[in-house]
């Protein structure tokens, strides 16, 4: 099979087959794994949103957890005090995170590289502080539990999200929608603008590109996606807690993206899967799984900067051309 054929296969049929396998997995996987898959999907969406900034725009943000958490808390607050609608909870999560990203982003996108990373870290932690200390609204360090999770309603049918399978499928559909949205964005004219900024933002500016505004738009979209992922997480856990806003949680999408590869669209998703699989198998043996994660990451970062998926695709591409 030549490179062209492989391209066609990988672009449409492989992902489709994979998606089908995912959709049917509750039929053949034990419940324990269905639950893990749910979490993987949520974190995959989080990481894909993050990578819009890193892989596509060239911006390393260490504060995405702030928006993830904002989405989670917004969903929790809505479900406790507002109409019992799942769709509204997701929308609320996404929009409130997008709004937070608009404010934070406005202040951060004017700086580059390390300063951008530090500023996002700082603002993310400010959001964490609010969640951790504003006991009246956020429940403080105990978090905000969600007691009434509305059922999933599709036309006549009603399913309770307390069933792991239902939660899983709901998550799969939401994450798929989010992923398709990001795919669209990346392949749009705006997506080309982001890639140009990553490659040479000065050149784009001299061609008339409003770099700051474009970056802000990317930051808001990433925030939106993070917020939706956070809202899903809240539904998954039936609570929102401050630790998901801490900078160490922000490190997760970063690590997942390095593992999977920032240069490939689905790289972070694969990275999320690898991350959880590694965690699962290593914590069976020892509690200090971060140690082994670090040991895996160091050679990946040094020798495989494209990440697992990136390196794989690169090798296959080179093989196809030769």
């Amino acid at each position: 099979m030549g490179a062209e054929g492989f391209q066609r296969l990988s672009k449409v049929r492989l992902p489709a087959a994979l998606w089908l396998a995912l959709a049917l997995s509750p039929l053949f996987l034990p419940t324990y794994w269905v639950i893990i898959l749910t979490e993987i999907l949520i974190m995959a969406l989080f990481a894909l949103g993050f990578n819009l900034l890193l892989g596509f725009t060239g911006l390393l943000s260490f504060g995405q957890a702030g928006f993830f958490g904002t989405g989670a808390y917004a969903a929790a607050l809505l479900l406790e005090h507002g109409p019992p609608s799942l769709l509204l909870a997701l929308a609320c999560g996404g929009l409130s995170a997008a709004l937070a990203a608009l404010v934070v982003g406005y202040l951060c996108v004017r700086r580059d590289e390390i300063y951008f990373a530090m500023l996002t870290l700082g603002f993310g932690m400010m959001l964490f502080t609010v969640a951790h200390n504003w006991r009246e609204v956020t429940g403080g360090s105990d978090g905000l539990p969600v007691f009434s999770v509305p059922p999933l309603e599709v036309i006549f049918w009603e399913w309770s999200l307390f069933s792991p399978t239902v939660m899983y499928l709901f998550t799969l559909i939401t994450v798929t929608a989010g992923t398709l949205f990001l795919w669209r964005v990346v392949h749009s004219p705006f997506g080309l603008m982001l890639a140009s900024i990553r490659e040479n933002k000065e050149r784009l500016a001299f061609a008339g590109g409003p770099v700051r505004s474009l970056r802000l738009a990317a930051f808001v979209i990433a925030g939106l996606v993070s917020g939706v992922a956070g809202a899903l997480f809240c539904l998954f856990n039936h609570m929102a807690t401050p630790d998901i806003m801490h900078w160490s949680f922000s490190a997760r999408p970063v690590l997942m993206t390095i593992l999977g590869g920032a240069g490939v669209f689905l790289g972070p998703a694969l990275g999320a899967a690898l991350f959880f699989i590694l965690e699962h198998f290593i914590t069976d043996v020892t509690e200090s799984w971060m140690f082994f994660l670090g040991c895996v990451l160091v050679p990946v970062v040094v020798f495989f900067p494209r990440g697992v998926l990136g390196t794989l695709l690169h090798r296959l591409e080179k093989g196809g051309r030769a």
Partner: protein
Amino acid sequence: MKGPPLLQVKGLSHRFGKFRVLQNVSLEVERGVLAALIGPNGAGKTTFYNVVSGRFPPSSGKIVFKGKDITGLPAHRIAPLGLLRSFQITNIFNNLTVLENVLAPLVLRHGRGFSMLRSLRKRRSLYGEAEAVLERLGLAEQARRPARELAYGDKRLVEIAIVMALQPELVLLDEPTAGMTPEETDRMIGLVRELAEDSGVTFFLTEHDMKVVFSVAARIHVLHQGRLLAEGAPEEIRAHEEVREAYLGGSLDA
């Protein structure tokens, strides 16, 4: 056809700390008249271009383009007005394909920079325009290659392609033939002449290679130690005493 000058620079001065790079430079560039800026190393040519194209604002002075005061405007506001520059050190989108290098400025020119939900690939007209620009510059065959893989001379052409895609009125060409072989240089000179003739673009170039300057420029401005030393037609400049001295004799006869 004469009209008001395309570019008017009045009393332009710039300092880096205590170091005065430009001192009270005033000049005009007419539409359709290919102009050149020359001067020995350190004369301030690149700073002049940087200031006019909006990289940073000048310490003092005024820059008027098409009758509009653009002094102090950032580069991304000046470019849409029709004033563009190319860079001395090749400044292209290395990991994008040659085609994408040209598509990006086209997207901007058509105001589609924030179009997020439409597919780029479906915009046939954009692709058509991009391919036409590449065709014009002889880069059509390299369209799908990543820009970083191109030969140096071709990369300089991509540099020009990015500029031409924006359909500018005035282009500041910063040493277009820098680092080129004699054949590539001849190609570039020919290209600049052709583009000046058929696309209605006014070029204002700066060069070290005097052969290039004297073969294309209709009007030459000479910068020396930050000041405008002389300006006029090529023959006048060639015969100019002070200019010859500034170049320490000889290098004018390329």
